[in-house]
């Protein structure tokens, strides 16, 4: 089987002769100055993956803000509707009222037992 070089030698003789052609030059010491120029532009450290954690926090914070604002609207409305139902009643007053109802029920049951007996 022919190798690439043999192939060029047979089919492309001029190209084969020019394989080692240099032709193009660079100024003297260019590669020393090139590496220095590149390194000068890298004084700032590239952002490591750690920064993505901050991004996650930023996303979480913004989500929390959005949820907070929207919940103010939703729950704010619910509170209003609760006060509409119970008027100026506080939570403690509401609980006390229901405990009185329970007592009344217990009393009624006791009366029923007496009547049965």
């Amino acid at each position, binding site marked *: 089987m022919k190798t690439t070089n043999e192939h060029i030698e047979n089919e492309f003789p*001029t*190209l084969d002769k020019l394989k080692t052609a*240099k032709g193009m*030059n660079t100024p003297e010491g260019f*590669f020393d100055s*090139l590496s220095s120029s590149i390194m000068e532009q890298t004084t700032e450290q590239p952002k490591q993956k750690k920064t993505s954690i901050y991004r996650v926090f930023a996303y979480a914070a913004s989500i929390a803000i959005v949820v907070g604002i929207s919940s103010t609207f939703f729950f704010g409305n619910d509170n209003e509707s609760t006060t509409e139902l119970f008027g100026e009643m506080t939570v403690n007053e509401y609980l006390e009222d229901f405990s009185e109802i329970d007592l009344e029920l217990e009393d009624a049951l006791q009366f029923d037992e007496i009547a049965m007996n």
Partner: protein
Amino acid sequence: MHLDDQDILTLFTTKGKEQIAFGHLVNKYQERLYWHIRKMVINHEDANDVTQNSFIKVWKGLPKFKKEANLFTWMYRIATNETLNFIKSNKKRVAQSIDDIQIENRKDDSFFSGEEIEAKLYKAIGTLPDKQKLVFNMKYFEELKYTEIADILGGSVGSLKASYHHAQKKIEAHLTNTD
């Protein structure tokens, strides 16, 4: 002596050693990437700019680079993209650079010292479409394997072989043309 790519990457992940690692990378690959770019844009100053831009992109992209990938292929791909973008936005300038390769009175061009036939070779390469030019340069001058070229440019090995063969044919015809 150059460090192994994996050693450079390990050094890069060590806090405070990023620049030292990158310095090794620049020293190891700057000449190869420069010549890869120079053969496409022809003009030295343009090649210098594109090489620097490519390395800056490498520097910025290194923290995200996956160790299991091939560093050399990745860097070549960045340099190739930068070169193609440069050519795209500076078509006239690159065409002028190809025209400027002096076949006669070459002393005028301080960055081209080749013989007449060499100048003719570069002019012939300049007539190829960009992708074919890349394939030709990477195979003929840089002696990369077809699998490596496929990793960098994409495409199948078969299509790259065909592209290289067509390029050789065109250039040989150009070189042997006495007009």
